[in-house]
């Protein structure tokens, strides 16, 4: 395979944010995303959040520029008040034009 690099961004967030995060990554340039569901604990404490169902686990493979933009937006609008964590890993992909 070609060894083109892209960034895999994983976001875990409380359930009410699902649609908002999808809109966010698409608006900032991600060409695709996948969503699963998880349960967990972090700084916020479990009980206060899971009334709305399991947390969202969004993953999206994107370019470096897009990942930076998304992180900025997360830091500005979501980190302060919502239960959200995110991390980034470089991945190798085929068909780089698709990401």
């Amino acid at each position, binding site marked *: 395979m070609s060894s083109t690099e892209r960034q895999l961004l994983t976001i875990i967030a*409380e359930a*009410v944010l699902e649609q908002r995060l999808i809109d966010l990554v698409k608006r900032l340039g991600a060409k695709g995303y996948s969503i699963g569901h998880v349960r967990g604990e972090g700084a916020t*404490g479990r*009980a*206060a*959040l899971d*009334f*709305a*169902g399991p947390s969202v686990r969004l993953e999206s493979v994107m370019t470096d520029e897009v990942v930076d933009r998304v992180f900025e937006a997360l830091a500005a609008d979501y980190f302060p*008040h*919502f239960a959200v964590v995110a991390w980034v890993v470089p991945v190798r992909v085929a068909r780089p034009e698709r990401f």
Partner: protein
Amino acid sequence: MIASIIVDNLLTAPVIAFVVAGLATLVRADIRLPEPLYAVLSSYLLLAIGIKGGRALGLSESAELWRPLIAALALGIITPLLAFALLRRVGRLDTINAAATAAHYGSVSAVTFTVALATLEASGQSVEGFLAGLLAVLEVVGIVVALALARDRGSSDGWTEALLEVIRGRSITLLLGGLVIGLAVGDERLAPTDPLFVSLFTGALTLFLVEMGVVAAERLRDARDAGWRIVVLGIVIPLANGAIGAAAGSLAGLSTGGTAVLATLAASASYIAAPAAVRIALPSASPGLYVTASLGITFPFNVILGIPIYLAMAQVLT
């Protein structure tokens, strides 16, 4: 008299199921039902309530509807304001948290409503069918009014978004969808669906309250963090709102059963639609506070003691 009504309410299958599941959870036994059942049963209950309401609506005169509708609108305005005032003064909450919590008390809990219906049915009281329609009205209005309080004080962004979330959300849509289905199909042609939507209703509610017992008990554990003021208000607010609801019901000319149900609606606190809306509109408010109050304190109080009290109020006032 109240004692006997309380016992009558307590000994119905749904309420006992709630109590047993709650106690089991408090001693750390796992009586949780499988996850998908929660969502399935709550959709079923909403749709079934809606269909029942629409069916009854089809048999009512529209002239009967105006006064109860006005009563519901009035309750949707008064109850969150009263809750807000109490939460600010007695509860000592800041504006944001008081408004966030008031939204829950201004809105309603469909499950509490349903338990009231089951209790009244068990005691042979009849209830006006169109009350399911008022449930939908009250669910929205109370949230709007409370969020408006916070907005006036300049601290809500997601306001319209939050509102759309409530209005287009599943709980309203299933209820209204059921109403329309019930109304359009009509009493007679609905008969083949009765085994599902009528006969199974109380059993499904019993099953659902097993799950609610678990969830409420888990919340109750958080009550310590919320502080005793919240615990007290979680009982005082529903009693106050319930009294106002009973008064409104009797003024609107409802039957004793209908008045008891309207009082229950006024007294009940939302724990699905309101938290979702508030989380968006007032993200800085603390869910640990409002979810604990509505789900950990007020919901069990209403199911176990509140409903019989509101019924007694209704009997006095009608």
